[in-house]
């Protein structure tokens, strides 16, 4: 090729390969013998490369025969320059590469097929994993829900049925008597107690539903009220119902706190009620409440009694949990669960410390 790229000489073999007479090739440029894609690439890649390094080797090109068909070739090119660096001519050597190109294309296709297959496999694995995770989550959720449901049915079956049966029996007795007798006020008072118990049970179940199904227990915080009065009121109620028990108190309250007093009263009532129910009957119950200058609250209820086995501690705060030894099982086993939910709603927690001498439940609330 001349320095301007026009073809100066061509051998008979290439003329034969291309099906073009020599005179149809001389004076043309290489790109005139290439397809469009090839000529663009020749101009943007191979021609600059040839100029920069003076040669190129094994460049794949598609030449166009006289009949329009494509002949793949591999091309080597080398520039020849004179001593001053002036380009004299460029020699181009072409190798027919039909077979090789077919082989290369097969390789490319095989690689593409392999890539597709791998991608499909990866997709399958991914979707399998996602599906399994979803299934596991559903099963876990179902298991969780069904456990809760079973417990719930048991609770409704036993705990609500008992006071209801008492009311039913009382009503039956009054209806049979058909008149006001000396026994009537006694029966009515028993029935009223049963109604109170049922009401308390329903409150607990509602709290459970709120904390499990809703977004947790909602608080109505009030800083104006006195924490000590709230606690003393609960103590008075429990003391009244259990006049033979001794409850000692120690309050060190440095400041007011922003809490939901009714909910803290509910929590404290539960802890104190448990201490009365489960504690040794002949031993004191100790209540200790501290609020430091920063507003951190610590409230502990301690009673003497059998230590709680360590493995039982995490279960204490599960819904429907009941201790193994129960003398008078009136509750749903929701009390401690709801108490811990109230603590959590305040950003705090309830801990249990248990040794040979005493069992101590401690509520800790951080300063608000």
């Amino acid at each position, binding site marked *: 090729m001349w320095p301007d790229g026009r073809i100066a000489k061509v051998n008979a073999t290439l003329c034969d390969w291309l099906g073009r007479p020599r005179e149809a090739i001389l004076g043309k440029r290489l790109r005139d013998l290439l397809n469009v*894609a090839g000529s*663009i690439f020749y101009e943007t890649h191979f021609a600059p490369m040839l*100029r920069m390094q003076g040669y190129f080797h094994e460049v794949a090109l598609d030449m166009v025969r006289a009949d329009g068909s494509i002949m793949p070739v591999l091309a080597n090119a080398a520039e020849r320059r004179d001593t001053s660096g002036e380009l004299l001519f460029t020699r181009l050597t072409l190798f027919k590469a039909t077979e090789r190109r077919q082989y290369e294309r097969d390789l490319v296709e095989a690689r593409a097929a392999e890539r597709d297959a791998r991608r499909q496999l990866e997709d399958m694995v991914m979707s399998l994993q996602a599906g399994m995770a979803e299934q596991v989550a559903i099963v876990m959720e179902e298991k969780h829900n069904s456990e809760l449901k079973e417990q719930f049915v048991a609770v409704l079956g036993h705990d609500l049925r008992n006071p209801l049966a008492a009311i039913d029996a009382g009503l039956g007795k009054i209806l049979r008597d058909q008149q006001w007798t000396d026994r009537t006020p006694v029966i009515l008072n028993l029935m009223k107690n049963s109604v109170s118990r049922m009401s308390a049970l329903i409150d607990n179940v509602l709290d459970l539903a709120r904390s499990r199904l809703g977004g947790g227990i909602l608080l109505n915080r009030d800083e104006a009220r006195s924490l000590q009065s709230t606690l003393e009121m609960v103590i008075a109620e429990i003391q009244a119902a259990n006049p033979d028990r001794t409850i000692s108190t120690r309050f060190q309250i440095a400041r007011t706190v922003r809490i939901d007093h009714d909910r803290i009263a509910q929590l404290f009532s539960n802890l104190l009620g448990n201490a009365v129910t489960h504690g040794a009957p002949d031993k004191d119950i100790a209540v200790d409440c501290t609020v430091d200058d920063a507003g951190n609250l610590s409230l502990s209820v301690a009673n003497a009694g059998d230590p709680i086995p360590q493995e039982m501690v995490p279960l204490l705060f599960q819904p429907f949990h009941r201790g193994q030894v129960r003398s008078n099982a009136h509750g749903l086993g929701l009390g401690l669960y709801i108490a811990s939910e109230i603590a959590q709603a305040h950003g705090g927690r309830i801990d249990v410390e248990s040794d040979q001498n005493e069992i101590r439940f401690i509520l800790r609330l951080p300063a608000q």
Partner: protein
Amino acid sequence: MSIIQRNNVTLNGTGGTAMVFAHGFGCDRNMWRFIEPHFRNDFRTVLFDHVGAGRSDLSAYDPEKYSSLDGYAADVVEIGQELGIEKAVFVGHSVSAMIGALASIRAPGMFDKLVMIGPSPRYIDDGEYSGGFSAAQIEELLTSLDDNHMGWSAAMAPAIMGNPDRPELGEELTNSFCRTDPEIAKQFARVTFMSDNRADLSKVEAQTLILQCSNDIIAAEHVGEYVHNAIPGSQIRYLQASGHCPNLSAPEEVTLAMRDFV
């Protein structure tokens, strides 16, 4: 990764005005090897690689950003801002001629002068407009890239190892020139050959010189003339050099034409 590292930017020269050289589709900033040194006495010359080419930071290649020439133009503006370039000369080869035009529109005052070597605002014919290629031909080009059928990206590497005949090119060049990540090259080819920036030409306010090669199949004479007519006040200069890369095949002629202009 700074902009300087991202685009492999280097500065040379002692002049007050900056001259930014931008390479086109196919190779990298080494395209300017025979031209840029001639301007070091009078200009502060700036060489860079587009992201995806040469020694740019390939990890900065974002297919979405570089899905149109605007992404490349934004990079040019960022480089200009980073270097505090004002009233400079932009020299763009091939598709970078249009990238320079877009950058000059985006950042008024950054480039006073624009040298376009082998520009084309649209490669595909469109009604009366003749870009030089039919849609089918460009599609064939892009498909052949998909097939890797040119073998150019894989076959390129062994071809450019070592260069005993031209030792002045140096080691760093022989291993990287024209070598591009095939995936990036594929998209750059698509962005280049599917681009249509005819509507932007009339917005160019920089003083513009078009250098038109003879026998350039990629940007034919009438395409250069279309650009000349569309850019207000532009000059066109016809080069003896044939082909699409006069910056390599006829650097003296290109340098002379640029000197007259700047």
